[in-house]
């Protein structure tokens, strides 16, 4: 399958500070990608680079086979809902749809009107008078009705209450099922990502810490607990994310492609949240040397 987003050695520098660096990504089409990481990790920078609002300082980025926002055709392929789902406060709901129709060659007006009706929004209502949830739904309507190949959403549900959040994610998932578009959305809530996404990018401190198919990640990460051991006698083929020891016990969070057969370890599965947290708190030197060779013990 072709890549919907590809980055090579991508970097963005603001004055003296790198907001994003050494970013390599190759994301297949048809995925719902969750972009997670702490505040200030570079999530919005990456999404703004993908939408073409920012240009790279280093490296390259391609979306849907072209440079972001390179021309009319390229702009039509990508929808972008910026942080806090901005709308024009003084324009009515109907004005927003008119704008969408005039600005987008691939606009699906029937879809937009149908969605507004189903949401129960009054077309004459000004966007500034809408609730946060309604405003987010209006922004999502514009993003979907443009019928993009890729829809990018920057923290779309961060400011919403739980009910509005659920309704937004329901509508987004329905749109994905209906229109076969790829989605990249950033969130700091792993539970949203776990349900909605099948692919994840973890950004920490302006670098990509881990990326991949969520199911593959869950299948390859384990927690091992057992009697205390010298770190030098740990099994080979294990990439150790964290190790903690008490007087008698050793606990490891590991990534491995093969099964751990050593009966000395109790192997338990790790949820996505644990995996993401383990990668977020990984010490910096472990990141550079991503697969240390450790001694055999099987």
């Amino acid at each position, binding site marked *: 399958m072709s890549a919907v987003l590809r980055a090579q050695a991508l970097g963005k520098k603001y004055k003296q500070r790198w907001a994003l660096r050494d970013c390599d990504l190759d994301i297949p089409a*048809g*995925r*719902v990608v969750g972009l997670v990481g702490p505040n200030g990790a570079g999530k919005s920078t990456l999404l703004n680079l993908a939408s073409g609002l920012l240009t790279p300082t280093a490296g390259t980025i391609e979306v849907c086979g072209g440079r972001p926002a390179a021309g009319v055709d390229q702009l039509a392929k990508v929808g972008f809902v910026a942080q806090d789902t901005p709308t024009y406060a003084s324009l009515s709901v109907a004005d927003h749809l008119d704008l969408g129709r005039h600005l987008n060659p691939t606009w699906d007006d029937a879809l937009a009107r149908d969605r507004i009706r189903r949401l129960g929004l009054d077309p004459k209502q000004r966007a500034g008078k809408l609730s946060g949830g309604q405003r987010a739904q209006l922004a999502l309507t514009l993003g979907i009705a443009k019928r993009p190949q890729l829809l990018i959403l920057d923290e779309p549900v961060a400011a919403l209450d739980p009910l509005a959040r*659920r309704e937004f*994610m*329901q*509508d*987004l*998932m*329905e749109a*994905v*099922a*209906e229109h076969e578009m790829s989605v990249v959305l950033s969130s700091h809530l792993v*539970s949203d990502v*776990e*349900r*909605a*996404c*099948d692919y994840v990018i973890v950004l920490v401190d302006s670098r990509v810490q881990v990326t991949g198919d969520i*199911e593959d990640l*869950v299948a390859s990460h384990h927690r091992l607990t057992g009697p205390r051991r010298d770190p030098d006698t740990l099994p080979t083929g294990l990439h150790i994310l964290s190790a903690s020891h008490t007087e008698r016990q050793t606990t490891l969070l590991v990534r491995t492609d093969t099964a751990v057969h050593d009966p000395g370890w109790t192997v338990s*599965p790790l*949820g996505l949240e644990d995996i993401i947290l383990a990668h977020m708190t990984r010490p910096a030197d472990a990141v550079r040397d991503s697969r240390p060779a450790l001694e055999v013990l099987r």
Partner: protein
Amino acid sequence: MIEFHLNDRSGLSPYQQVVRQVRHALRLGLLEQGDRLPTVKDVARQLAINPNTVLKAYRELEHDGLVAARPGVGTFVTRTLADGTLAAHGPLRQDLRRWLTKARLAGLDEESIEALFMNTLRNEAGEDVA
């Protein structure tokens, strides 16, 4: 028609939960041969989950010969799990009751019994794989 539910604390992925709930409904007779499963779009919307997850669950059920997809129409139940297994429940339950009595007489409390049972079940499953 059945409705799916997700439990975030079950330790199972959404995909495993959907598969399990269909199998469960088949076992209990809530789903019968010829019944239609909810569409991928409906499940994706209702649970706010990735449609690919639902597709994957349905494909696994299809691979197990439990359902069949008819393009453009829907996914239908082709086989039920209810009959044979339910009949076997009675005697098995009796055996289990007897075993539980023995376990209590041996001094095990509920927690120890559960741990022993789950541990044995898991080891057995592990041996099957190896």
